[in-house]
């Protein structure tokens, strides 16, 4: 079984390496950013059992921080990425500390409300340039000129590396003793607390980590597409990442990645349809909740298991 897993992983890595020869690199990079975003969201949901409906605030602010540091302050992109991650983490700490106080549906509503606050802040704050957004963020070479990311192909491998770093970080976290405690808390908080674990601390840490990675995703996206706008902090964006994780499979490791690729591809394909995309997205939500709750990865996994049993 494990060898099969390694084979699949190897195939995926090879695919990832040659992908830009086959598919438009900017599409791939955008999808990878959203994949990281969706994985960060899923970390909170799948392992801490907390569904954030305001995750766009971390994603969007990550992009804004990156843009401001690189464009307005003229610093190299590494600084921008760190600013994106750090800023989002800080925001995560502040909002998380309050949101953690409630669970389930209330938690979702609180994160939604905080995200709205951030949205309105961004509408008015000078550094975000409001409705116009931060445009024309320059792409400068990394490592003082060694890695020329002005070239889309080079940037692709950098983005791939960032994605893999984030994915690996999540994997390490969830498979660490820390992650196990988190799962225990998710499954039975009272039990875990009676065993001496301070549930709130663990949940907050997961929240901040999730926020930081979402910020990394947003900053990377700003680096690739060279702009950061209000859409990135909107409630629609928060809903979209939920959709990605849902389509791919909540609580699975690879589900969000697949979901992100599917949704980004869909956005591109339906771009000419205008607002009808919303209808399709909404319909997908409804269909999944009613019939395919496990998402693509989950349902395919079940189907494969059933086939194995039958043979």
């Amino acid at each position: 079984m494990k060898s099969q897993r390694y084979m699949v992983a190897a195939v995926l890595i090879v695919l990832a390496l040659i992908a830009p020869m086959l598919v438009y690199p900017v599409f791939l990079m955008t999808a990878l950013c959203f994949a990281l975003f969706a994985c960060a969201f899923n970390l909170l949901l799948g392992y801490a059992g907390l569904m954030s409906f305001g995750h766009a605030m971390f994603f969007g602010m990550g992009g804004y921080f990156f843009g401001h540091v690189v464009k307005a302050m003229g610093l190299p992109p590494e600084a921008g990425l760190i600013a994106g991650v750090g800023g989002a983490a800080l925001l995560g700490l502040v909002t998380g500390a309050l949101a953690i106080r409630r669970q389930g549906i209330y938690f979702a509503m609180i994160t939604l409300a905080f995200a709205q606050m951030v949205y309105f802040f961004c509408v008015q704050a000078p550094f975000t340039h409001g409705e116009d957004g931060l445009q024309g963020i320059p792409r400068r070479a990394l490592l003082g000129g060694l890695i020329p990311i002005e070239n889309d192909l080079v940037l692709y491998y950098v983005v791939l590396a960032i994605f893999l770093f984030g994915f690996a970080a999540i994997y390490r976290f969830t498979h660490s003793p820390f992650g196990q405690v988190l799962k225990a808390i998710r499954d039975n908080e009272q039990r875990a607390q009676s065993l001496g674990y301070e549930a709130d601390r663990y949940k907050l840490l997961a929240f901040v980590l999730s926020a930081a990675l979402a910020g990394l995703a947003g900053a990377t996206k700003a680096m690739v597409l060279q702009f950061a706008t209000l859409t990135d902090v909107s409630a629609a964006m928060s809903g979209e990442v939920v959709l990605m994780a849902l389509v791919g499979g909540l609580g699975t490791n690879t589900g969000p990645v697949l979901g992100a690729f599917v949704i980004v591809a869909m956005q591109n394909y339906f771009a000419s349809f205008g607002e009808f995309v919303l209808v399709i997205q909404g319909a997908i939500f409804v269909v999944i909740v009613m019939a395919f709750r496990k998402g693509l990865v989950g349902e395919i996994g079940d189907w494969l298991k059933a086939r194995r049993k039958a043979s």
Partner: protein
Amino acid sequence: MLDIFSIPLPALFGQLLLGLINGAFYAMLSLGLAVIFGMLNVINFTHGAQYMLGAFAAWLMLTNLSIPFWASLVLAPLIVGLFGIVIERLFLKRIYHLDHLYGFLLTFGMALVIEGLFQWRWGSSGAPYPAPIPGGYNLGFMFMPAYRGFVVLAALVICLATWYGIERTRLGAYLRAATENPTLVRAFGINVPLLITLTYGLGVGLAALAGVLAAPIQQVSALMGSNLVLVVFAVVVIGGMGSIMGSIITGFGLGLIEGFTKVVYPPASNTVIFVVMAIVLMVKPAGLFGQTK
């Protein structure tokens, strides 16, 4: 901070009236959400879209069938309420046994579909709806448009009527009991699933009624509910969904606070309700009128 007495009174009272009107809508909508959540344990994200449907129904009936406002006030909630009942029977009923978050996701998806369809068909710019009561009264310290005064009074009547219906009638007793212990209520011979369906219809009807009342005040547009519903969620977290009266008081109160903020510190007016929510979460996480279950 501006000294209150240096603000011209008409400006202050004008904003407070606006705040009161907003508060009226917050109260009506959070009431509907609270009633639905109590019985169904579902956060009805579609509430904003159903509010929009009420306004659109009134507008469509006026422009296509020349049906006047006062008739729409009765017809629109019935039509949209019926639509809500269909949604409950076809979709919501089948997911009650799941985690509450799925209800949230389902209603979110439905809101996207409804708003997306209307946006696609009618665009996102709004259509005006003529005020059914023209003119206004000069009260000396401010000018009060007649229709807006009516809206506040109507909202109060609607909220209090809903409160009375739930807290003081036999049917309301069925509703309260079924919220507490649906299994036992069913074992007494009451058709609880039907009660649940009707409750959802009632909540949706309330949203649609609010929408009809809103039509002459704001442009009737596909997205008119989507921003409002997010604020109402904050109102509901602040109020705590524990009591009907609590939702009403919180809704009106927050509207007034918002209006007041518009006068003394306008940049914060969009976010003040969320700030209040943050404070309430720190001090009383269950909400002002909530009970920790």
